[in-house]
């Protein structure tokens, strides 16, 4: 699918009551990180001394409260890159698993060890075009490594840093639904700057 088609689809599926993409961007700009979640995201931004993206919408049943009932870990590496993960899992029903990542001060796709061969491989691979959500233009990757294996992942660059969100393609959600979820998450991200 061409990037243009992806973009058109994206605009269609993320309309969600908006009359056009401009309005969606304006709405996103006006949003803020939900009060119940903001503390965790602000603390993360302060810890890495770089802006982080707080999601204001999450796929059902998740919320994005760091340390909350769906929290699946928050890790910060020495290079200040972070991974924040949320998961809902029910045997027999499936799982909803979302990762949010940031790599302050670097824009190159990181390198992972292949799970089977241990060889260095790009953590995000198989680009499938770009799409826009709010003021973010993200690239879609469908073959990913580590905690993002089996996920569809959107990655984008902002002010010399790389950011990513991803969601596991797993029941109860289909691939198409995961893409819709990611589109909606992307449109509704809010930047939380670090307090100096």
């Amino acid at each position, binding site marked *: 699918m061409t990037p243009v088609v992806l973009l058109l689809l994206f605009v269609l599926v993320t309309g969600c009551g908006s009359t056009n993409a401009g309005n969606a961007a304006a709405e996103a700009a006006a949003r803020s990180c939900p009060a119940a979640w903001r503390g965790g995201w602000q603390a993360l931004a302060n810890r890495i001394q770089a802006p982080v993206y707080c999601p204001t919408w999450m796929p059902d049943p998740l919320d994005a409260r760091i340390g909350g009932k769906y929290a699946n870990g928050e890790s910060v590496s020495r290079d200040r890159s972070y991974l924040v993960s949320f998961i809902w899992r029910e045997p027999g029903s499936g799982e909803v698993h979302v990762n949010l990542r940031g790599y302050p001060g670097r824009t190159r796709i990181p390198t992972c060890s292949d799970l089977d061969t241990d060889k260095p491989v790009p953590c995000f691979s198989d680009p499938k075009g770009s799409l826009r959500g709010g003021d973010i233009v993200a690239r879609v990757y469908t073959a990913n490594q580590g905690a993002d294996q089996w996920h569809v992942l959107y990655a984008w660059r902002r002010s010399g840093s790389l950011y990513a969100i991803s969601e596991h393609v797993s029941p109860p959600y289909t*691939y198409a639904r995961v893409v819709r979820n990611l589109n909606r998450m992307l449109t509704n991200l809010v930047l939380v700057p670090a307090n100096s």
Partner: protein
Amino acid sequence: MRLTRRQALVGAATSGLGAVGLYELVDRLTSSPATRSQGRLLPEQHLLDGLAVMRDNGVAVVVPPLHHAVITAQVVTGNLRGARLELEETLVDLERRYAPTPAGLGVTVAWGLPYFRRHVPKQAHLHLPVDLRASRTESRTTSALADAMRFPSDPVDTILEANDVAVLLRSDVRAHIEDGERRLFRGSSILHVTSIRRGFVGSDFRSGPSLAKRMAQAAGVDGAELIPDDAQLFLGFTSTQQAALGPRRIANFETLGYVDLGPRGYFLNGTHMHLSHVFEDLASWYQTFDFQERVDTAFKPGLEVKPGVVTVSEGPAEAASAAAVRRGFNRDGRIGHSTSIQSTSRLERDVVADDGTVYKRGTAVPQRADFNTLDNPFAWSTSPERDRMQDPPAAGLHFVVFNPTSDDFRRNRLAMDGVLPDGTRLPFGARDRNQGFNAVLSTSHRQNFLVPPRRHRSFPLAEL
């Protein structure tokens, strides 16, 4: 549009004949097939005349018929001579109705060892071709038609089937296949259908998502959205490069001198057919292998292919030897599907055939006739429990291939598992990720058949 298997089977007759359901979509998703040239009735049943050739990425690609079906059956009569006349009459009638081309109907009748053992054991002992190469290797007389086996990468529960007969029907027109099925099997007192397997193959490499992708999406198969738009097969890469298919008569018993045809050459112009069903894990293939790894896996580790390309040249000059596969394994720790098989499926040297034709080194021997399926694992089975029939559609392949002997197929399939023709066994675990496609394939059923020449296709040896 998404159909469940149950919806797809609504209206099915109890015999399964006519239950085409999901596959009706193929016609809705493709334009009217182009009229193809008239064909000749060749002495070989397995050869289909009038196949078009197109080019993609500069590579000549054979255009296979759009619709495929394989019907397996048991012989349910003791009157073989009468049955022979009856079946032959029906086959001749089909030939009168349809040209032996994709525009008409290709019919290939293949017979399994259970038929030869139960119904014509004495004649079979005398006339079944002997595989000279395998007999040398195994130091005992080995038939060109052997029982199917489980290969190292097969699941332990792969079913080794025991059908008497399998009929392969191929056409661009689904109605022709349905008519063939009806005339051959409906109400038959000589053949009792045991399974029906259906599928399709095709891509014009040009206009939008291919048939394979759209069918997989319609069926709601995991990973369908990630199938490349140009894909001919679910796994993405083109499979019918002209140079990767054996030329016309090469798979005949007599052509390469692999076989002793016996005292009367009864099966001259015949061949061997392997039939299996393979599940394909598309989600794993597209989500855990990136494009380069898919190229490495499908073809050769490190092969440079432009992103998005689905048709890769596999000419004689590019064929890999066993030594090259071994070197690649030592360097990369992995083997590609095509190159590992090429170590046995391509001619090691120029060969002058029985009719004087020179087949150059690197020429492919097997003639594949495999096709995409959404059967799980079959469209219909007389033994649904034994065949582990499931309701939801599943991505897979009905693998049909013509080789000169069972042993020739066995060598190719073992090479796919890293067992090279010189006996070298590359150290892989079962379904190792580095062992070609094996990590995403799972074979549910296998059987070998003998394809007699057209003149003996109906109840072979029964007249002797």
